[in-house]
């Protein structure tokens, strides 16, 4: 049996003294460790040198080939320290050289061992070509140093889209040098440079222009809970190969958005659709559908319900959609495959439908930036009654006319043959995505009994459907009960009724009878009761003093509670809590208790209007949360009238 705590003991077993490091290295380590107290290892220098050449990609096209030579020197800030250094690669980005060297005295000795190689396919992807090689760097002396050197080749310059300065470890100096030949026109777009000291130099020599970007004293990347994506906040460079000359011919890269479209569209056209093969199934789907809207819905919902998300994304499979007939036959596909099938189905049904590329909200760039890092998703756009509708077949149970939050506000690149159109997916507010809770409770001895109804609209309804419909049948009842039990272990729901859960277009309602124990405290004849079941104080989102990044909730929504409690005749409520109303640009809260005879009603509304809480707003946000927490603390006092 493996013991649980053996690492420390292993370290102590090292009896032979390690090769002594130079005093200067130890001094450097001491200085860095004072600055980065929680870090074990720092990078003293990280230098990436990019050179450009001409070549051909797998499609036989003339392209720019990029070579990256990099060297990173690491120093241990503690006696015992480890760092795993990974280098990622795939079919388009080959790792030609990857070496680790250990500093012995003043010299580096290169290890014979190759990096450990693994696939790194993300959850949700069935198959791709993403791989990593990594070295575990182990140090047994403060000031000990190791070095990583590597050489990578980007077989098509399109796939070097951006470089970030910050790393998961502190970096004393991060440098990116691009040696650009005269035959190449390339742009280095600075992103989020404001507020950071990044030196840029440009030197012309021997037919090349060298662009060097240097940033010093970088803290490690902070990986905080619900953090806004780093592309929104961390400085980085987007590399845009605009054009190049080959044998006197001027060849296009990604200079304008048209160039990106042409590339995307070219790969889309390679899908090899055979619409005739879709017709028999389409005829069944459209059976009995007479209006255009009915047809659109029938097709959209059929694809949502019948095509499973299974992604093959190796090499160009990551860019070229599977053919519509292939997706239909297999009944699975990735976003491109589903969007392709949906588009072809709708076209056959006479709808003005178009394949569309889009970046989800995790990507900050507009479509005007001609780079591959702008889009990471594919959907279908239709024009219906003078309006665009964005249909995302990967979003199960989303009704026609509604959009998942992850694409809202984003620009969509809509394919229209040789041309394209860019349109924005409408952004919604928290009011359109609501969790409404109505409860009517009565005090019955020391138990609260009554009924609860929860109504979900917008994305909250879709989220419910996605979770509920995917559960094993044996767990669905418990899930519905849980909706009415408010996560309170003492609540027991029975006689559950729901709206028609097979209809994704109507609000979801779940209602039933409830019985709540352990919620009434009888002390000296009085009863103390809380009916504020959904505190929603968002405590997990309270930033501490160390938090440096903005929150991104990934949703906007409104909680709307209406909870009443009726006590028996002869009893009354005393000490009614004060009402609370808070309004801010991004969020608001309103809570109020009212008493009518022997019934008290809590009406409470919390709206998250903006999914982002910026660092500059943290003080206000904390005050907001504190106030709600204080409001939620109240227990109602119920006393007998005779008292």
């Amino acid at each position, binding site marked *: 049996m493996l*013991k649980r*705590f053996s690492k420390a003991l292993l370290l102590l077993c090292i009896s032979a003294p390690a090769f002594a490091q130079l005093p200067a290295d130890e001094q450097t380590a001491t200085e860095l460790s004072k600055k980065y107290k929680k870090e074990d290892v720092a990078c003293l220098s990280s230098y990436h040198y990019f050179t450009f050449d001409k070549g051909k990609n797998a499609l036989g096209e003339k392209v720019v080939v990029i070579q990256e030579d990099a060297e990173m020197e690491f120093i241990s800030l503690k006696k015992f320290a480890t760092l795993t250094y990974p280098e990622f690669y795939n079919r388009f980005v080959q790792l030609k050289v990857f070496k680790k060297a250990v500093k012995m005295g003043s010299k580096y000795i290169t290890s014979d061992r190759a990096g450990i190689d693994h696939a790194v396919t993300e959850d949700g992807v069935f198959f791709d070509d993403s791989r990593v090689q990594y070295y575990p760097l182990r140090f047994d002396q403060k000031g000990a140093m190791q070095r990583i050197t590597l050489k990578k080749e980007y077989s098509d310059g399109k796939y070097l889209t951006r470089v970030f300065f910050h790393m998961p470890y502190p970096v004393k100096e991060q440098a990116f040098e691009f040696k650009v030949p005269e035959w190449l026109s390339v742009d280095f777009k600075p992103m989020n440079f404001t507020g950071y000291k990044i030196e840029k130099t440009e030197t012309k020599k021997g037919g090349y222009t060298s662009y060097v970007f240097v940033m010093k004293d970088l803290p490690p990347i902070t990986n905080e809970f619900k953090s806004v994506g780093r592309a929104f906040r961390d400085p980085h460079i987007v590399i845009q190969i605009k054009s190049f000359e080959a044998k006197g011919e001027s060849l296009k890269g990604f200079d304008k958005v048209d160039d990106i479209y042409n590339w995307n569209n070219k790969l889309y056209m390679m899908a090899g659709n055979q619409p005739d093969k879709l017709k028999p199934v389409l005829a069944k789907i459209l059976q009995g559908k007479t209006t255009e809207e009915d047809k659109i819905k029938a097709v959209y919902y059929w694809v949502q319900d019948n095509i499973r998300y299974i992604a093959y994304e190796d090499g160009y499979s990551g860019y070229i959609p599977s053919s519509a007939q292939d997706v239909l036959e297999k*009944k699975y596909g990735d976003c491109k495959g589903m969007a392709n099938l949906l588009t072809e189905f709708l076209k056959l049904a006479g709808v003005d439908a178009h394949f569309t590329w889009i970046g989800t909200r995790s990507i900050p760039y507009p479509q005007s930036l001609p780079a591959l890092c702008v889009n990471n998703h594919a959907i279908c756009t239709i024009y219906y009654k003078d309006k665009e509708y964005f249909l995302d077949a990967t979003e199960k149970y989303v009704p026609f006319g509604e959009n998942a939050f992850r694409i809202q506000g984003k620009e969509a690149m809509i394919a229209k043959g040789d041309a394209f159109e860019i349109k924005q997916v409408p952004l919604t507010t928290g009011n359109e995505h609501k969790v409404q809770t109505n409860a009517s409770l009565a005090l019955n001895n020391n138990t609260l009994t009554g009924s609860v109804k929860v109504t979900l609209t917008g994305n909250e309804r879709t989220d419910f459907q996605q979770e509920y419909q995917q559960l094993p049948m044996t767990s669905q009842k418990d899930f519905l009960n849980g909706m009415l039990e408010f996560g309170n272990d003492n609540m027991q729901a029975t006689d559950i009724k729901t709206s028609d859960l097979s209809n994704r277009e109507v609000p979801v309602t779940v209602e039933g009878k409830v019985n709540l124990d352990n919620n009434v405290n009888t002390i*000296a004849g009085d009863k103390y009761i809380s009916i504020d079941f959904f505190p929603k104080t968002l405590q997990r989102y309270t930033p501490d003093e160390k938090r440096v990044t903005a929150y991104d909730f990934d949703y906007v929504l409104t909680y709307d509670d209406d909870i009443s409690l009726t006590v028996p005749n002869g009893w009354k409520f005393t000490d009614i809590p004060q009402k609370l109303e808070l309004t801010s640009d991004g969020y608001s809260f309103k809570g109020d208790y009212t008493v009518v005879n022997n019934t008290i009603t809590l009406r409470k509304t919390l709206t998250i209007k903006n999914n982002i809480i910026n660092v500059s707003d943290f003080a206000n946000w904390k005050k907001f949360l504190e106030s709600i927490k204080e409001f939620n603390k109240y227990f109602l006092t119920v006393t007998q009238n005779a008292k």
Partner: protein
Amino acid sequence: MPSNMKHYFATHRVKAFFLFAALLVSGTLTAQTYIDDGFLDNIEKNAKSVWDEPSPAFTSNNTPDAWKNESAIIMGYKRSILFDKKSSGGFFTARENSVYFFEKVRFKIKVQDKNSVEHFSEIYFRYGDKQDGFNAHIIKPGGEVQNVDLKEAVSVESTSDVPEFFKSFFDQSYSSQRRYYKVAVSNLEPGDILEYVANTKSNLNVTGAGFVEFTPQYEVCSKSYPVAYNEIDIETDSKSFFKSLSLNGAPEFNKESTDDKDFFKYVFIDKNREIQKDINFINELTVYPVVKFQVIYANKPNAKGVLIGDKGELKKGFSREELAKKAWEDYEAVGDYPYAPGNAYATVQFVINSSWADLKKLGAKEWPEKQYVERAYYYVRHLVVYRDTYLSDKMFAYIFGSLLYQRDIQSELVISISNDIGKLKDVLFDQEIRYAIKLNNQYYFNCTDHSNPGDMVQSLLGNDAYIIYKPAAKTGAQDIKPITLPEVTADDNTAVYNIEASLDAGMNNLSVKRKNTFTGISKAREMDEAMKFTTYMLDDYKYYGGGSPTDNMKSAQADEYQKSTTALKDEFKEAKPEFAKQELQREFGHNVKFSDYKIASDGRSVKNKTLDFTETFELPDITRKAGRKYLLSLTGLVGGQLQIKEEQRDRKLDISVGYPHTLTWNISFKIPDGYTVAGLTELNTNVENEAGKYSCEAKEENGSVVIKIIKCYKQRNVPKENWKNMLAFIDEAYNSSFKYILLKPKS
């Protein structure tokens, strides 16, 4: 929902770093090359023979109505494994050195909802040999059969990623890294039946091996879905032996005739098995229907040291004489084992010799016997402290027993079985035999990093055991003395929490100083967490009377050692508070502001066996308001209590508590100045029966609220008929944890 398009390398460069870190932890690395077209030529053809075999249980596509609301139904699951050393198929060479395994699997499942469709959207198969075969199809509700195309199958990097129903028996038995592939199943929808057959061949080189014991199997009849039909066929040649034991109502393996007199066939069939629903206080192997079985290859019918029956016998258990003989033979062989895995140079006997030499240098020959026994135990514990893995029971007993023998102290060897598995009569595998040393009236069980001589072990409490002796040289006769291992009571295993608490001036945050004291098995269970990020290992040598590691070091080495220990202390000093805070937050389900952690007694010596440490922390925002009054749940300071949900209240299976134990909370809460307290009498309760107890006594005393809470599990095992007794005190403890006291302003 993941973003779905191709990952642009540079886009995800740093994101990928974090993903990578997560993958290293979770070990879910997958895939990744397409299957070789050449394989496809053979694989489906090789599977045909399995389809062609008559299998009446797989004929029908109907499922019982009773299971219509289940997520999926396993309609049939049949595994047939042939163990063949000789040339049964006629194609081995005469000097064959391997045992071959021919494994056939047929699996048929009806997926009834989207969840099970998702689970079986990807199917896995092995292709490690040109004779391996696999074929799958789906059967639509109308009866149409659609073949699953394998041409887009991709390789799987780690066998551990292969789900239960797709892994070869041999791979489960030998954890070999075979080549597996996975493929997405086209057109699978709720209501469909998915069926596959697999046909694999594996081999194991047994040159020079006297015997090979394949991993013991525990086939729990109930699975994650109801099972209509489950069959396991084991066929062996005359070189392999089979044994099996069915427990808790599981069907038995039956011996069936074969065409070849040198082959033996054993068949297990289970039908209409529901899924298990009880989840609390369950000891799976002692209550669930389970069949244990094992195949052993032996080159001689009477291979010494093998717990087997006769050639062709379906062995279902072993007499105490057989067990004792096997246990003694195994025990005697330990001296020649490598002390650490992969290190053949340092045998256990070598370590014993050097340990005895060390102890002698320390004057062990002169120590009184009692002191020697303790120190020998601590010497073994010290060895364990500096090992990556714990010693097996058998190795511990051998080392400790040998060290006693060196001082001419005659101890006795005890064998038993874990009470998680059953009684001695249920021993089927030698891996199930547990060892201990008895000296006078004291038992010495295998040690951990923190145990003391004589400490009890939960898994052996009260079980039946034998004291076994060396067999007579001439006759082989062996003395065996049946005994029962000691039981413990709830008073032996205690956790006492003395809590001093007070509210801050804002009546919002509760300051807590909690002194925790543990004894017995309660202590043993607490030790790992309590001692985590402490440097107990640095002075562990003192317990056996040893000298500091630096005593024999040269100056430079000693400096290096000091630097190392300083670095370790510094690291732990930072890590401990965070760890303690996380543990408290988990315990209370509430934010904690952590202040201090102090160990008064680590309980690692016979002189002081009690673990005693104090935590100081604050529970913010703990009060509730009612006008100018405050409500505070002091009973909530016991932490989260077990809730038995409605669906768990009808008990079908006997109850295993693990060990009897008592938890006591002594809470002293200082009543804030200017306030009076009410609600104490409402806290008082006492529920007690033969299974356990929950009591709460609250009073006001010298300006403080004083509460004493006791929760006691009196019995280790409770029959299902007495579940109501368990519910009585468990419910009371749960309900009490929601009670508040009231603090009223005096004016």
